[in-house]
């Protein structure tokens, strides 16, 4: 019962704000938007406390959705340890960002529409993480994509926002096509989409088929979680309101791919090379996005590339079979990246929408609390102990190192380490350019109102202390909590884990991060524009990946569309239609003489026809 309530609460908020929000006072709209999510958060806490969650899982079957012979799918919800963690992250961070939005969107005319979309998103995301089978998950998966589209294009009267929304939607479609194919492949081979039965059936499935299915599912994950090669939509998604970027494009939706792999990890474990592919894609994406963030001037786009990079870490963790660490990083990342985005939003709020870091600067003075929040988030992102990001990132790198020792590629670990360095540099750069030095742009920046400051404060506390969830000194409560979920797949990484073989493995990431911060500090201390020469050009064109896509996919597709529209459509299809019309017209002209209008001619024709039939009958 409580599971339905969790999903239904934000859904009700969506209905109320969507249908009647325009006529309600703003305070009521905001209260409904935040209240439903807050209540969903409370319900999630309640549900997570249910002993069934820690056991086999809490289930709620609503109705039988599909039934075709042996194959049945029921519309049902399901909460186990993994879902409980995700639901808490979604509703918890979601609630904070909702509260923040009250202040951030206070002057927007489409206030009710904003909260309606945001509530719909939370409901969809909860459906995704609480779905009892792959098909329900897929419904949530598509719904969050829809909400993402709606919210990126929230200011649809801006051309760039509208086209970015479309871009996100279309790029996600590519991945989702693979995802759907993967689901269908699993449905036909395993005959079931229930998570537990899929896990049970995965051992007996043909390895080739399983590899294909998991790779297709991973294709969906690369779209939703903005990994190479489908990352291109996420930087553009920053056209949406900043709280949306924080909630959807940093903390929750983009982590759906990670959640999906964790949810289906028995399949991925049995599926040959898939996890190696996941690790490679994650490592390459992490490094690539971090380097691009190094030269980006748009503060929000820096954070977007940072998100892509951090998601790469999570996939890396999944790929090196350090899944609890991946989920741990997902959680801490939700905290500190949401904090960074909210701080950036606070800056935008104060500077009337300016996000270009060349026009920012010196904000540490007037916006002391925002700057502090950004600093906490940045230190967490850079992986400086004792901030939250340190613990999770460190655990991932540790897993990568062990994986390499078990026969995996050492390059993955090296890429992770290099990314940690670059991450520290770009975080320092963003920090310096935005908050240090003299004010670059005249204006009267002011500190954010309390309704925006409080969520940031909470998130800052979580970013600072969230690492305790997985810190060895604190007994790794989160990892121990998730362990039963992952242990049946015989990962066993956590159990009896020896202290790292060499202390240097743990020390190295910290050293690298600190070195990055120092390097960033040295480079950007006096706010110089560091161009990095040809390398900078290469990076500021995002490694020419989008250029390549334009040349290889977009331009040929447009050419083909023009060919179809201008030649095939006008001459071929229109021509055929018009030709048929003209043919009929000419034939009519040719035979209109037969239609004399004389009844006697018609009668003669009838008689002639009768004679023919009678003759045929007689002489056949």
């Amino acid at each position: 019962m409580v599971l339905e309530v969790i999903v239904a609460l934000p859904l009700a908020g969506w209905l109320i704000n969507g249908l009647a929000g325009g006529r309600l006072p703003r305070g009521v709209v905001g209260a409904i938007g935040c209240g439903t999510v807050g209540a969903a958060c409370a319900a999630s806490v309640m549900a997570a406390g249910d002993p069934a969650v820690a056991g086999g899982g809490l289930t709620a079957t609503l109705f039988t959705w599909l039934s075709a012979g042996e194959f049945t799918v029921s519309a049902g919800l399901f909460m186990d340890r993994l879902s409980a963690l995700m639901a808490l992250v979604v509703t918890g961070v979601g609630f904070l960002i909702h509260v923040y939005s009250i202040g951030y969107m206070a002057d927007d005319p489409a206030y009710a529409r904003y909260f309606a979309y945001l509530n719909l998103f939370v409901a969809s995301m909860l459906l995704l993480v609480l779905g009892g089978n792959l098909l329900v998950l897929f419904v949530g998966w598509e719904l969050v994509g829809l909400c993402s589209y709606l919210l990126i294009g929230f200011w649809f009267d801006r051309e760039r926002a509208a086209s970015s929304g479309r871009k996100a939607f279309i790029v996600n479609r590519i991945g989702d096509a693979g995802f759907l194919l993967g689901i269908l492949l699993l449905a036909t081979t395993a005959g079931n989409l229930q998570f537990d039965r899929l896990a049970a059936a995965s051992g007996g499935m043909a390895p080739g088929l399983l590899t294909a299915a998991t790779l297709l599912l991973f294709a969906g994950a690369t779209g939703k979680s903005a990994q190479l090669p489908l990352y291109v939509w996420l930087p553009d998604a920053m056209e949406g309101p900043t709280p949306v970027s924080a909630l959807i494009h940093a903390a929750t939706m983009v982590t759906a791919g990670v959640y999906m792999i964790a949810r289906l990890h028995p399949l991925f474990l049995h599926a040959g090379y898939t996890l190696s592919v996941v690790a490679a894609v994650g490592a390459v994406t992490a490094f690539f996005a971090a380097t691009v963030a190094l030269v980006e001037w748009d503060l929000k786009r820096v954070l977007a590339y940072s998100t892509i990079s951090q998601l790469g870490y999570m996939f890396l963790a999944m790929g090196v079979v350090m899944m609890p660490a991946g989920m741990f990083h997902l959680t801490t990342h939700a905290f500190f990246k949401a904090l960074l985005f909210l701080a950036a939003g606070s800056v935008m709020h104060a500077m009337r929408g300016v996000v270009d870091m060349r026009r920012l600067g010196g904000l540490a003075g007037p916006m002391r609390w925002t700057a502090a929040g950004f600093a906490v988030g940045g230190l967490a992102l850079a992986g400086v102990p004792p901030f939250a990001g340190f613990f999770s990132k460190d655990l991932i790198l540790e897993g990568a190192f062990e994986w390499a020792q078990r026969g995996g590629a050492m390059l993955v670990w090296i890429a992770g380490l290099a990314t940690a360095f670059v991450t520290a540099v770009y975080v320092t750069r963003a920090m310096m350019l935005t908050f240090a030095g003299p004010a670059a742009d005249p204006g009267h920046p002011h500190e954010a109102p309390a309704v925006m400051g409080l969520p940031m404060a909470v998130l800052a506390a979580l970013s600072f202390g969230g690492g305790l969830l997985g810190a060895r000194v604190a007994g790794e409560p989160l990892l121990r909590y998730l362990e039963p979920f992952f242990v049946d797949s015989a990962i066993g990484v956590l159990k009896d884990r020896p202290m790292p073989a060499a202390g240097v493995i743990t020390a190295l990431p910290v050293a690298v991060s600190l070195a990055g911060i120092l390097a960033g500090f040295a480079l950007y201390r006096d706010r110089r524009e560091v161009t990095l020469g040809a390398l900078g050009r290469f990076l500021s064109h995002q490694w020419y990946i989008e250029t390549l896509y334009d040349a290889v996919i977009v331009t040929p597709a447009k050419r083909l569309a023009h060919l179809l529209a201008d030649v095939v459509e006008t001459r071929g299809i229109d021509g055929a239609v018009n030709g048929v019309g003209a043919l009929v017209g000419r034939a009519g002209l040719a035979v209109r003489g037969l239609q004399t209008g004389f009844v006697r001619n018609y009668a003669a024709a009838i008689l002639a026809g009768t004679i023919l039939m009678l003759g045929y009958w007689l002489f056949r």
Partner: protein
Amino acid sequence: MVVEVIIFVFAALGALAGGLGVVASRLPVRNALSLLLVLGSLAVTYLLLAAQFIAVLQVIVYAGAIVVLFLFVVMLLHRQLGAMSPDRLRWQGPVAIGLSAAFLILMLLTLRFATNAAAPAPAEFGTVESVGRALFTSFALPFEVASVILLVGIIAAVVIGRPASRPVAAPPRSSAPSPVGAPRR
């Protein structure tokens, strides 16, 4: 049964002569009266075929009502019926005769002249009673439908026959002003 053959020959000759009159005569009254001859002759053959009720029906409905209706119309349209504009379909006549001849030959070809003589008819076959019995039992529904058709026909005739208050495709000559207060359609 030679008498029967003789009667048939006379009736057949009468029917054919009447048919020829219907088709060939230039005087509408003569056409109508020729039709009467055909109908009467056929009534006689119906009697030969043990269809007393149909024969009576033929005389009452066809000869009595329909032919009289034709005659009424002939009287109504009297002054116009004779005059005809020159024929514009010059090929229609020969083609029609050719087609009709071909049709007749084909129909005659279907006859075999080998059918066994019919069994003697029971006394009650074709009487009013037997026809009525069939009509009111197994054919009750078509019978009722027929009555509806008659009703529809009557209404249709009344509606069509009313003087048009505004002629639809009025040629110049017939645009007579309609009486005041005539029902408009």
